[in-house]
């Protein structure tokens, strides 16, 4: 018997999508395989490692623990949505590169999305706070030291960008919105 599918509307990185998915399809699989957004990674499929973390209406969630049908009508931001408007590295991603905060890069999307949400509410964390902020994500390569540094560096970059923006926070938010509005190359291809 063929599996029944359900229509789901969701906005991913600013782009609206309509999908028809089986009830049991995981959000992570929909993002990766239905929409081709492979920046989201699956490390454990039981919600512990955090590699699959995406932002759902701005808040970090584990996309391996959510059924796609349960996020109908919501907004999702993935690793691709954390890029700069020109498709290059976004502020948090740039900080990870500058601080050698990634090695194999598999866990990195979960860290970048988590840190993006964290810095929105905590723009100037201490090293201790930065370590706490990433406390729910596993990395097997880096020993976390350079990820902690990346969080602080990302905060620095974001604060500098906010200062450069003439209308302060509003402008910075516009820029981030702009980044989301521009589809990632792979999203276009899918």
């Amino acid at each position: 018997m063929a599996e029944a599918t359900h229509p789901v509307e969701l906005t991913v990185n600013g782009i609206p999508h309509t999908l028809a998915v089986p009830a049991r399809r995981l959000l992570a699989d929909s993002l990766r395989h239905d929409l081709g957004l492979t920046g989201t990674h699956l490390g454990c499929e039981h919600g512990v490692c955090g590699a699959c973390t995406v932002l759902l209406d701005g808040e970090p969630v584990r996309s391996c623990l959510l059924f796609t049908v349960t996020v109908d009508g919501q907004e999702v931001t993935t690793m691709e949505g954390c890029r700069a408007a020109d498709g290059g590295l976004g502020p948090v991603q740039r900080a990870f590169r500058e601080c050698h905060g990634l090695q194999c890069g598999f866990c990195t999307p979960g860290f970048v999305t988590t840190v993006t949400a964290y810095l929105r509410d905590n723009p100037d964390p201490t090293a201790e706070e930065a370590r706490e902020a990433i406390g729910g994500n596993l990395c097997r390569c880096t020993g976390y030291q350079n990820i902690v540094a990346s969080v602080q560096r990302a905060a620095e970059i974001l604060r500098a960008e906010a200062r450069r923006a003439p209308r302060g926070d509003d402008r910075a938010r516009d820029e981030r919105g702009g980044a989301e509005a521009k589809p990632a190359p792979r999203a276009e291809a899918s």
Partner: protein
Amino acid sequence: MTIAPARPAAPAQETTSGPFGASIPRREDLRLAAGDGRYLDDIGHQALAAAFLRSPHAHARVRDIDVSGALEVDGLVAVYTYEDLDGRVAEPLPLLIPHPSLHAPRTAYPLANGIVRHVGEPVVMVVARDRYLAEDAVDRVIVDWEPLPAVVGLPAAFEARHAVHADVPDNVAAHMVQTVGDAPAAIGAAPYTMDLTLEIERSASMPLEGKGVLARWDADDRSLRVYSSTQTSTSVRFALAAKLDLPVDRVEVVTPDVGGGFGVKIVHPWPEEVLVAWAALRLGREVKWVEDRREHFISSAHERGQLHTVKVGFDADGHILGLDVRFLHDNGAYIPYGIIVPIISSTQLLGPYKLGAYRVEFHSMYTNTVIVTPYRGAGRPHGVFVMERVMDALADRLGLDRAEVRRRNMIGPDEMPYDQGMIFQDGRPLIYDTGDFPETLRRALAMVDWSGFQAVRDAARAEGRRVGIGVAAYVEGTGVGPYEGAHVRVDTTGDVVVATGLTTQGQGHETAFAQIAAQELGVPVERVKVTTGDTRRFKYGVGTFASRAAVMSGNAVAAAAGKVRAKALRIAAQALGADLTELVLSDGEIAVRGFGPDGPRIALATVAVLANPLRYAFDEEAKRATQFAGPPSDGPPVPEGEEPGLEATGWYSPIRTTFANGAHAVIVETDPETAEIRILRYCVVHDCGRMINPMIVEGQVHGGVAQGVGGALYERMVYDPDGQLLNASFMDFLMPYASEVPHIEIDHLASPSPLNPLGVKGIGEAGLIPGHAVIASAVEDAEGFRIDRMPISPSELFDLRRRHAAGEVPPLHRSSKEGREDIG
């Protein structure tokens, strides 16, 4: 293929400028940090999905398999059992590293042939439209099992009341003895002797990305392309060609971005690699399998389980006169990777020390558990744990400072090269090339303020806190052979394209190898593009393991780039009408020395054009290489001894391994009530020769230390007596989060290796190696009784405290005295 012998040349010129040695940001991060990497499951979205029915029993006979239920699943494409396998696919998987001491090697079949020998062994393969449906089908297969007695744990294996393999009744796969001098006699004659029993439990590599395979059979072209998340694409290619009976030229293996390896992905061909490729060929469809986390726990590989009994003889000054080590190594149900891990344990146990005499004997034992193959450190953490526990124990026995005892037994820098008189894992003599071990130790002690710790201890004690300090030293053989190669080409755009056979799992090879090529060719790093692990680009190679990539492929890239440089200069000399000795190559162009900015010069890109004499121009630049473009010449367009193209292949094959070394020192605090263990300081001094990119080196150390901390305090594979792995999830197998890994302080020494032209040594595993040893040393110091088993959890420490209070665990000698003579 010709391989130049390793020339013990003077190390390459020390440069103060140039990309070699610079902490430049990684090239690969432009892709990986953008979420634009291509890992195994990021490709082949249209492929059929494979899933496996795996044994729920540790040891059982398969009486019958009923697949009829699976046939009802919509989207099912195929179901395979052992009976369906044909040709060499139906044979056992290869024994990768045969050894004369491995007298009873047994390897698994790709799908169980009548008997399963560990929980997780694949029994049935299902192929369906997607993974959800494939797992539905797996759930509907019914197997009639006849459970057999399981052998779990080293004591049970050695006791051999039951056998894992019916034709190996004593469960012994291998037995090996190595001796240097007469250790039993030396111990017998020694003024002091001591016995220790030391144990390390199982852990695992546990990369965040599991294994995975994607296979495409092109029936029209009669060719197979396999993508695998492996540490060796070149060897997978040969293995698959052999298994599938295909000409090797019709098989290509590509390693995409890999989400960590740490050793587990060097094993090959995995059952799934063979079966996915076989099914793709059989079905004429693209087939993919991506390992899930539970599968990784129960069907990939573990490491570390060893039980050591040690006898040591020493004199009143703490010199070791004789050391006799016997150990049991748990190799799991099969032994495809041979006995590399226990061989490394036996040999690297010696560390930076010279002993009067040494005897080591091990038995490698079959158990009904997941196979054991190298995990970062690969036998070294166990060996170092044993030796460093011995050092602490005899220092305590004699009332000497623990660091001083180490120093007294150390090989001095004036004794290099030092021959330990044993045979190492590469079949070559265990000869240390360079290093200043006492200086490494001295720096670690200075960093942690070893001599000032008594005051710290007293202050803590006054506050009711318990702190302890520990130290451990190690030597690591890195860059084992047999060889690696590299191809370097300068494109007509001026870009430099580098390819090497070995693979990458996050070590930054795209950057480090680019730095080497850029240095040699005088071009900016940004102009160098590096490909690893793609047999379409480079067919020969060995793999990424044993901290060997920088040493092996690094030197091969340097060799190839050196040839390209020489060729570019020859062509430029002719084009500029200059003498070779007058030419300078820098910033992507070759100029004649002494003429200043307006002098004669030619861009490397133009040299690349001229290097390939053309009949047909394909663009503006190419016109310069056509037959009517230049001055007439009498000689052949491609001079004798030259080849077209500005490119070359280089090889590096060392006479033996190069040895890195290091020392770690830590301070821990143990909670007097809960027995929680907290690391207050973690200090690392290491020496990996010349560094290509210090930022990457430190990143490797950080990651290694984190895994060392995990192995010492948190990670263990817990099997019940029936062979069920009780903690096969990230919920229950405790890998360190950021909250468990301390801030790591690092100091570098750089003793160049004379064995390779770049003077480099490996760094991949170093950070992990002394982890168990140094943390045991510090916890023991804090608690005042001996720690002889790792990892140690708070509940185990709590239990040891109770037994200590009850008089069952004796105190350290130094704890029973007033004052602590140990800290000097």
